[in-house]
């Protein structure tokens, strides 16, 4: 017999595309005014490349730049380091969009990934996972961690490590 798990919504079970971004040479990507309608958020991105090979991109939630708010680690690099920083992906090894991804034409050399933010609208700290991959050395991520913030997530920003720009396709889904 199937038993409902805590938080499961039987009325609107499913996944809904709620926003699409196709930036070209953008200095920052922001998803703002995210409604608290859903249980979880999922971002899928692909065909992503940037203007310099040495740069990378992190993520900030609710435009919160307070030091120590993000705790996470990268399993992909087998690192034992637990990092705290002002955003997810402060260094190349912890980046959802990694270095060496500058090809506008070669799919394997572009970033593709998934970001999940669980129970984003609830009044608890927000757990997340980030998985990304590209055919480049040391530039893939398998992050899992927590954002220390109890307010509902209403904004997601991609933050560059320097002055580079990014191009690609980003799809934000609400999961019920």
């Amino acid at each position, binding site marked *: 017999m199937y038993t409902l798990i805590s938080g499961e919504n039987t009325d609107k079970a499913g996944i809904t595309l709620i926003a699409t971004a196709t930036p070209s040479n*953008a200095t920052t990507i922001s998803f703002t005014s995210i409604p608290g309608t859903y249980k979880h958020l999922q971002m899928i991105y692909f065909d992503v490349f940037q203007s310099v090979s040495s740069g990378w991109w992190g993520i900030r939630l609710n435009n919160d730049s307070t030091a120590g708010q993000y705790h996470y680690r990268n399993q992909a690099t087998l690192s034992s380091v637990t990092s705290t920083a002002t955003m997810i992906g*402060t260094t190349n090894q912890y980046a959802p969009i990694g270095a060496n991804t500058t090809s506008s034409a070669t799919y394997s050399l572009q970033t593709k990934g998934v970001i999940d933010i669980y129970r984003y609208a609830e009044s608890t700290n927000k757990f997340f996972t980030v998985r990304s991959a590209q055919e480049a050395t040391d530039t893939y991520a398998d992050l899992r961690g927590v954002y220390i913030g109890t307010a509902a997530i209403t904004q997601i920003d991609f933050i560059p490590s320097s002055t580079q720009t990014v191009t690609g396709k980003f799809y934000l889904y609400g999961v019920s």
Partner: protein
Amino acid sequence: MRYEVNVTTGEIIERESTAEELAQEAVDQAAAAAANAERLAVEEAAAAVKDSARAKLAALGLTEEEIAALVGI
């Protein structure tokens, strides 16, 4: 150019950064550079320790295969 999507309305805005946003970008970039430099320094220090261990093990007569089994490639 900043790229913003208002998820509620679907509106997409492309605009330049404000002065306040430019200031935050400078802070972010400095933090990223510092964090990455720190990570690289830690990795270089670890590599130096590993090289030292390999040299000492080689001096004891271990083969390359035996050293690799102990300290990794």
